[in-house]
C-alpha cells in the first residue's frame, strides 16, 4: 500500500508531495491527468510567480520547474496522462490511463490538489444568441500560449479576474484589439498590479458596475451589448453600450473542482464549492487532506505552495501517527469577510501557528482585521487596503485558541472600533 496519493500535479500537489517526503514519507505517488506536471502554471507564461517564496520573478513554467526539479532523487512516483475517476473514503483511488487501463490504487492517506475550473457563460445565464467566439479566459490562454492560436481579433472581456486581465495584455501583444474589460462589481476582482500592467498600460477601458446583457451573432460573435447595473446588480435600461467584436472572454470566477470529493461524501462549502478543512488541511474524512485551489481559489501560486507544504507535512504526520482527535473550534466569517479558511480548528491535534486565509467582501481602507472569541479579541492586524480581489493572510498563535466554541474573523467597524470591545 502507498503512504500517500496526491491527486493533481499543479503547484499544490507538487509542494505537498515534496513536503510529505521531507517529513518522512517514502511511498508517495502523484497522479496528473495532463501530459506534464505543473498544472495551470504551464499556460501562465507571464512573469510574477515566486516573489514571496523565491524572492524573484519567475514565469509559471519556471516556477513549476523548481518543484519538478525537487522531485528528482526523492523517489516520489509520478503518473501523468492519468485521470482519477473516483475516490472513496477508504482511500481507494480509481484511475485510468492508456498504458495501464483502469486500476484501483490504495493509500494510507490522500491529498486532493485538483485545482479549479472556470465559470462559463451558462453559469451566468447571459442571454442572447450563441455564436462561436465566446470562451473562458483560461481556455483562450491555453489556445494562445500552448497551442499557438489566436481565438479572435476584436475582444471584449467580461470579468476583471486576473486571468482575464493577463489575457487582455497577451491578446493585445498578439495584435488583437481589446475593446473593453467589463466588471459587474464596483471594484475589480483582480490584483491591482494586473489592472495597472494589463489594462492601463495599454489604454484598455475598465467598465466597473457594468455587465454583458446581450450577445449578437449567429455563426461567429458579432456584437456584445453591455449595460450599467444598479446596487442590486440589475441592468439599468437605457445605459447600453454596444461593441463590435468577434470574441468575448469570460473571466468571471473559478470553481474548485470537487466532483470527486463530493462523490466520496467529503464535506463541501456549497457556496464556493471549496472543501471544508481543519487547520491541518484535513477534510471531513480522516486521512484525506487537501490544498490549493481545490480548497479555495488563490491569486498567488506562492500562497498555494505555502499552504500545500503545510498540508503535505500534516498528511505525513497522519500516516506516521494516526488519526487526530480533539475538540473542534469552528471559525466564523464576521463582518466584511467573504470567505475564510480553515473552517475548523483542533487546538490540540496539530502543532505550529494557525494560518487564516480570507477574502473581504467589499473594499476597505485603513481597517484592522480582528480575530475574536466569546466577545474577546484574540488578535488585531492593521491593513492599509483590503480588496475582494486579493486574498489576505493572518497568523495566530495556537495558544490563543480557546478549547472549544467558535472563533470569529471580522473587519473592524468604520469608527475603528469593535462593537463588542
Amino acid at each position: 500500500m502507498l503512504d500517500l496519493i496526491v491527486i493533481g500535479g499543479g503547484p499544490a500537489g507538487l509542494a505537498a508531495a515534496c513536503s510529505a517526503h521531507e517529513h518522512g514519507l517514502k511511498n508517495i505517488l502523484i497522479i496528473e491527468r495532463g501530459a506534464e506536471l505543473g498544472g495551470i502554471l504551464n499556460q501562465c507564461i507571464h512573469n510574477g510567480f515566486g516573489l514571496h517564496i523565491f524572492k524573484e520573478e519567475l514565469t509559471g513554467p519556471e516556477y513549476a520547474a523548481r518543484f519538478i526539479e525537487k522531485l528528482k532523487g526523492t523517489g516520489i512516483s509520478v503518473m501523468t496522462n492519468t485521470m482519477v475517476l473516483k475516490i472513496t473514503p477508504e482511500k481507494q483511488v480509481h484511475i485510468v490511463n492508456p498504458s495501464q487501463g483502469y486500476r484501483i490504487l490504495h493509500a494510507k492517506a490522500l491529498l486532493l490538489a485538483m485545482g479549479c475550473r472556470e465559470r462559463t457563460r451558462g453559469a451566468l445565464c447571459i442571454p442572447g444568441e450563441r455564436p462561436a467566439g465566446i470562451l473562458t479566459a483560461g481556455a483562450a490562454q491555453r489556445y494562445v500560449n500552448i497551442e499557438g492560436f489566436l481565438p479572435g481579433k476584436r475582444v471584449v472581456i467580461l470579468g476583471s479576474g486576473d486571468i482575464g486581465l493577463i489575457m487582455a495584455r497577451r491578446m493585445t501583444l498578439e495584435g488583437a484589439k481589446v475593446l473593453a474589460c467589463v466588471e459587474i462589481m464596483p471594484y475589480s476582482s483582480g490584483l491591482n498590479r494586473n489592472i495597472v500592467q494589463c489594462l492601463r498600460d495599454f489604454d484598455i477601458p475598465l467598465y466597473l458596475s457594468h455587465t454583458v446583457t446581450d450577445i449578437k451573432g449567429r455563426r461567429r460573435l458579432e456584437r456584445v451589448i453591455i449595460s450599467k447595473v444598479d446596487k442590486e446588480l440589475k441592468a439599468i435600461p437605457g445605459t447600453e453600450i454596444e461593441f463590435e467584436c468577434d470574441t468575448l472572454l469570460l473571466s468571471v470566477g473559478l470553481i474548485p473542482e470537487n466532483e470527486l470529493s463530493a462523490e466520496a461524501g467529503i464535506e463541501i462549502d456549497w457556496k464556493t464549492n471549496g472543501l471544508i478543512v481543519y487547520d491541518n488541511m484535513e477534510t471531513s474524512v480522516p486521512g484525506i487532506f487537501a490544498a490549493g485551489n481545490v480548497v479555495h481559489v488563490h491569486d498567488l501560486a506562492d500562497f498555494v505552495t505555502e499552504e500545500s507544504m503545510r498540508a503535505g507535512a500534516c498528511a505525513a504526520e497522519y500516516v506516521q501517527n494516526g488519526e487526530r482527535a480533539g475538540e473542534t473550534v469552528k471559525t466564523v466569517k464576521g463582518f466584511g469577510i467573504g470567505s475564510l479558511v480553515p473552517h475548523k480548528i483542533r487546538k490540540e491535534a496539530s502543532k505550529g501557528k494557525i494560518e487564516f486565509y480570507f477574502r473581504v467582501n467589499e473594499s476597505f481602507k485603513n481597517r484592522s482585521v480582528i480575530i475574536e472569541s466569546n466577545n474577546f479579541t484574540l488578535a488585531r492586524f492593521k491593513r492599509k487596503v483590503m480588496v475582494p480581489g486579493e486574498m489576505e493572510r493572518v497568523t495566530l498563535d495556537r495558544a490563543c485558541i480557546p478549547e472549544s466554541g467558535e472563533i470569529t474573523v471580522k473587519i473592524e467597524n468604520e469608527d475603528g472600533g469593535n462593537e463588542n470591545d
Partner: protein
Amino acid sequence: MFDVVIIGCGVVGAAAAYELSKYGISAAVLEKENDVASGTSKANSGIIHAGYDPEPGTLMAKLNVRGAYLAGELCRKLDVPYKQIGSLVLAFDERDMASVRQLYERGRTNGVKDLELLDAEQVRLIEPNACKSVCGALFAADAAIICPWEYTLALAETAVKNGVKLYLNSPVRSISPLPSGGYRLFSDGAYWDTRFILNAAGVHADDIHNMAAEPEFSITPVRGEYFLMDKCESKRAAHILFGVPGEFGKGVLVAPTVHGNLIVGPGTEPVDDKENTGTTYGGLDYVKQTALKAVPSIDFHRCIRNFSGLRAVSDTDDFIVRENAGAKGFIDIAGIKSPGLSAAPAIAEMAVELLQSSGLKLERKERIVDSRKRIRFKGLSPDEKNELIMRNPAYGNVICRCETVTEGEILDALSGPIPPQSIDGVKRRTGSGLGRCQGGFCGPKILSIIAREKKQEPVEILQDKAGTFVLTDETKTGGSHA
C-alpha cells in the same frame, strides 16, 4: 434520379429516411446545415409524451400515441438513451384539477394506457420536491425521456447504412417540376432529380412548399427557452413535471434528462425570425419564475447552459401530413410542433403510406441493418473498461472530464457513418462538452483531434454550424507546443 428526396434531416426527416431505407428504392436526404439534428430536433424538452395532450381525432393524437409506442423499441434497437420515468401534470387549484381531469379523459379517448389521477398525498409521496400547495396530478406511466439528437442521429445513421444518401450543407433553394414528371431540387451549385419529395424542413416547411405550389399554410416559429442544470440538481424531480397546458404548449416543465441533468423550460414566445434561437432575459425569467412555483427548491445558480428551440406552429393547429394539392408526388410534413419528437416514427410510417398511394412502388429489402451500438466508456464495468483499453489504448485517454468521454469514443464518432464536422458534432455523438464546464476543458483537445484526424488546420475547425470558427489566426510565435 432518386425515387424519393427528403428535405430536412431533423427527427422527422431522419425517421422517414430510416423507414424508407427498409425498401428497395433510391432515396436521399438534403440538409442545409453541416449535421443532422441541427434545427428544432436538438433543442426541445426531449420528452416522449404519453399522448393525453392532443385533441382527440387530430393527427397529433393518433401519431403521438403510435409514435411513442414505436420509440421505445427503436431506442432499444438503435442504442438511444431512453428512460420511461413517467410524467405528472401538477394541479395547484381546483381550476387546474378540472383541466387535469379533462386531460385524463382525453388520454383515455386517445388510447393512452396507464393513466392515473393522483391526490395531493400521492403526489407528495412520489415527488417530494413538488410545491406543497399541489392538490393533485395526472400520472402517465408511459412518458419517457430521450436524447433527441442521438435519436435523430441513430435513425439517420441507420438509414445511411442501408443505402440512403445524405447530403449535408445542401440547402434547397428552389424546386422545378421536370417535364417527364418528378422534380429538380436546386441547392448552391448542385441539383438533384427525384420522383417524389418529402418536405420535412421544420420551421421552413412553408417556404419549401411554396417553392413548388401555391401557399396553403404558413409556419410561425414559437420560441421556447430553457435552463439546463448541473447534475447536482437532477434530484429535484423524479418524473417529468408539467404544469397544466397553456395556449401554445404544455407549459414549463421540470424534468431529469437522460444525461443526468435537470431541464427547466420552455417558455412560449412567437418570433418573426426562423433562425432566432437566442435567449432573452425576460424569456428566461418567465421560465424560472414559473418553474419555481412547481418546484421551489431549484437552485438556478447551478445552471450550466441556456438554449432555445423553435416550434413550427402552423395556422391549421394540427400536424400537416399530406400530398401537396398542387404538386403530385410532393408530400408536406409540416407544422410538426410538439409532440413531433414523440410522433416522428409514426409520421414516417404515414408519409410512406402517402408515397405509396401517390404511386411509389415499395418492396421490402431482404436484409437491412436494424441495429446500432456505440461504446459508452463511462457506463462500463472496470473489467470491461480494462479490456477495451487493452484492445485500444485510446479508450484510456479521458478527453472530457465532466462526462468521462475518451479519445477512443471520439475517434469512433469521427469514423462513423455520418462523421461530425465540428466540435459540437462530436458532442452530439459522444456527449463530450455536455457537462458542467461546457467544453472549457475538452474543447481545445477535441479541436486538435479533429484537426489531426481530418488533416485540417486548427483555424479551419468549427464549433458548430458553418462559419462558427473557433480560432482566427496563428500567434506570432506559434505557441510552445506548435
